């Protein structure tokens, strides 16, 4: 029981060695008034067979609907090798590589990961990951405040085209330290930050500008102009990017004439299953000049006492276990296991494979949107190109239509009404390389049916 290996003889000889009569005596420093009687709120123990059966039943209850939701988490094909290796006990059941000599596997993998992410985002340095994309954006805003010494305002401009959950998370993570988040309105025709939106901040003290590319609506922002505008005013640029898209789209390090200062994003598309929202990992890369302001673990290559190359955690003086109240963050862990999966995924994809994934997802989304907009009562909401998701407007409220689709085993996208009530009945839809033409046709004809029903009702 409870995975405890002791025999009765073991226990008796151990108690004798300690010099106590029974295990209970080992708890004699706990005041009796505090001792717990029983645990009525916990069910009886289940054997592996029993819990296995229960979990299989619950999984079956949830099923596997055909999913066209994106909005920050994307269904991609995950090669079989990725999790077969990531769940090896040597990766799965190891801890943070404090003893570098006994952790060269994890350390080298993290170094390879840092190399891949730095190059993918076009910046010089990467940390070993943060919790997820949304919290990474919050950490990036805090980092920008530390790094931008010319600004004293702690004002961060965040367009409303940035994922609503990311904006909320950044406020929760960074707001307690006095950061001020100011939201910029978007253009309702283009679904982007409009040209000139920033003019009213001319001459004001602003610390950083956040730009998401592709933005929450899947649309492409004019990142070059935005980045140059910010840099001309000593404002740092925090890029929030989708890692798959970077196989096709210009990396943050090449935005405008100088490039973004910090890039963050959700690493989930790189070999991590959707799994109801986590565990995922947040990536963060930056220009070398800001490395000491970075939060989280960083791995470096060095030499051992015999002069051979090896890997170790470095720049630890930034971290909570040394700096305590003055650390760059309170973060201890990275998301090591997910980074392990992502590094294997990126190795299997290589530059050409990742480009194919990005291009295929883009192509499927174009196909999806053109199929859906052939349905009467459905139209594209914004002008201009998208990466792999797009907003479409319905001539009926979205929620009941989505319910009808769900009853047919189709998750038809995200209802935008909650976060953007001004858009009316609108859906954010996504198709990746995992969707076939047959899947798309099934969705389109189901949508036509559901809209007909909604109109008849």
């Amino acid at each position, binding site marked *: 029981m409870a995975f405890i290996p002791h025999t009765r003889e*073991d226990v008796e000889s151990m108690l004798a*060695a300690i010099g106590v009569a029974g295990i209970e005596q*080992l708890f004699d*420093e*706990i*005041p009796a008034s505090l001792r*717990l009687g029983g645990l009525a*709120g*916990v069910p009886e123990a*289940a054997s592996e067979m029993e819990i296995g059966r229960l979990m*299989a039943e619950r999984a079956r209850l949830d099923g596997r609907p055909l*999913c066209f*939701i994106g909005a920050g*988490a994307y269904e991609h094909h995950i090669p079989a*090798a990725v999790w077969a290796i990531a769940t090896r*006990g040597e990766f*799965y059941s190891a*801890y943070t590589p404090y003893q570098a*000599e*006994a*952790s060269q*596997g994890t350390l*080298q*993998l993290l*170094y390879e990961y840092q190399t*891949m992410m*730095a190059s*993918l985002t076009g910046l010089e*340095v990467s940390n070993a*990951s943060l*919790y997820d994309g949304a*919290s990474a954006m919050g950490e990036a805003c805090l980092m920008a405040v530390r790094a931008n010494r010319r600004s004293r305002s702690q004002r961060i401009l965040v367009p409303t085209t940035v994922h609503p*959950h990311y904006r909320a998370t950044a406020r*929760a993570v960074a707001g*307690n*330290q006095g950061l001020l988040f100011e939201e910029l309105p978007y253009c309702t025709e283009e679904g982007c930050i409009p040209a000139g939106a920033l003019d009213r901040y001319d001459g004001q003290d602003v610390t950083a500008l956040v730009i998401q590319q592709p933005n929450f609506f899947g649309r492409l922002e004019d990142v070059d102009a935005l980045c140059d505008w910010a840099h001309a005013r000593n404002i740092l640029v925090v890029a929030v990017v989708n890692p798959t898209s970077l196989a096709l789209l210009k990396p943050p390090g090449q935005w405008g004439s100088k490039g973004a200062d910090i890039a963050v994003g959700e690493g989930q598309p790189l070999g991590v*299953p959707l799994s*109801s*929202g986590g565990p995922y990992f947040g990536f963060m890369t930056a220009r070398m000049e800001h490395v000491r302001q970075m939060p989280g673990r960083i791995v470096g*290559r*060095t*030499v*051992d*006492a015999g002069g051979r190359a090896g890997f*170790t955690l470095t720049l630890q003086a930034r971290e909570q*276990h040394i700096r305590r*109240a003055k650390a760059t963050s*309170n973060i201890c862990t*990275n998301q*090591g296991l*997910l980074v392990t999966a992502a590094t294997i995924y990126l190795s*299997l*994809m*290589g*530059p*050409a*494979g990742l480009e*194919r994934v990005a291009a295929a997802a883009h192509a499927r989304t*174009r196909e999806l949107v053109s199929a859906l907009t052939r349905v009467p009562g459905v139209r594209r909401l914004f002008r201009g190109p998208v990466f792999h998701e797009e907003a479409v407007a319905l001539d009926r409220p979205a929620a009941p239509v989505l319910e009808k689709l769900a009853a047919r085993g189709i*998750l038809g996208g995200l209802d935008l009404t909650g976060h953007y009530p001004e858009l009316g009945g609108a859906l954010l839809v996504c198709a990746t390389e995992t969707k076939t033409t047959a899947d798309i046709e099934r969705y389109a004809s189901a949508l036509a049916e559901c809209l007909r029903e909604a109109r008849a009702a």
Partner: protein
Amino acid sequence: MSTRLEKPIFEYSVPGRGAEDQWPRDPGPAASDDLPAASRRSGRPLLPEVSELETVRHFTRLSQLNFSIDTHFYPLGSCTMKYNPKACNSLAMLPEFLARHPLAPESSGQGFLACMYELQEMLKAVTGMQAVALSPMAGAQGEFAGVAMIRAYHRARGDLERNEIIVPEAAHGTNPATATMCGCVVREVPVNAAGDVDLEALKAAVGPKTAGIMLTNPSTLGVFERRIEAVARTVHEAGGLLYYDGANLNAILGKVRPGDMGFDVIHVNLHKTFSTPHGGGGPGAGPVGVSARLAPFLPVPLLARRGERYGWLTERDLPQSIGRLSGFMGNAGVLLRAYVYMRMLGREGMAKVSEYATLNANYLLAQLKRAGFDAAYPDRRASHELIVTLKRQAKELGVTAMDFAKRLLDHGMHAPTTYFPLLVPECLLIEPTETESKAALDAFVAAMAEILAEAAKEPERVTSAPHTMPVRRLDDVRAAKQLDLTWKPPAAHAIPTTS
């Protein structure tokens, strides 16, 4: 464990090679002809071009350069490196659970949400708290949520002056770092020679500026804070709240509950007490539990039951919430693993965990004393972990705690935590956990005794350890001064770019 170093994967790369069977079909250039040239990438990223077999071999070989629980005794103090049952992993990775989108409607997730709800209920039962939020993604994020709630509570009452967080000097570094992230000021209070918080100093420290105190119990010194009720009274009477850092919950599971000790808010490290994997440094999960008066401030989304259905509460339902800590609901897959583990332990198994963890720690303490080592707190019971101080050996033999740690690696054992808590000189913080057998503990004591004998006879063999690992001691100074954080292609192997 292999000792053969593996070259960086980029050095296997050959232009034009690739694991093409894993890729989607090429949609052709016309498929992305709508993307404007100014938005497009020029030049490919530095990713390796390798076959599937090369990839599998490379990462399998890297795995073999690691110590792990599955392969080695891993008594890393404060980290609870217990066995991670295989069923927890395989059941959390059922295809339906993996495929579920975080924004999928609640109607298509009732099976998953039922597990989450029951996990919440079990966490309430074992901690004695009134409400639980599952979303914090690690212990440090749970701490953040807890202190942010304390701050929000005082503010909501108009008590705006309370911004001081008290931590004992032996606290984990995340405690003061968290207080800073929440915009609070840290005040440290000393610990007395027996390892308990100095009550007089605490009484002097609390006042109208006190927001709360952060405590671990048993403390980071491996002993139970005996006057916890007096500590709670002192802080509450001054108007502050008590935060319980769940790092050491394994020591008291099923025996005593933080809620009964007087704590107002806690976090639980599921990757410690409830055996979810450490994964080479994450993912963790740090659910928070609160007393009734803090419930309105819990982070969102928050799982609730409405009739027979489970669903999420958001900012609209909880206007006083401290907000959202992640893009979605937190580390769902970690929570599922903890759920399976807790169901397998059941009511009877919970107390067994703390009983055998404590038995193992006290047995190690007794045997290490017999082998000639000094306990940091010789007159106290060990909790689930114990501290040995090598101050005497360092002075007499010139062999430090770090040297012992490195030499243990040569004995096929992961080192205990070294130099933490900072309060105890030359310390090893040793946590065997309940899943280790008597034989494993005896082997550890024998290894420690052997190193001690070696330190007297041949100290340089110990101070230059490890000798059997893939690398010897690494030059941390060089690593920090000559930063090499990414692999750079030798000019001859430059990665070709495409336009």
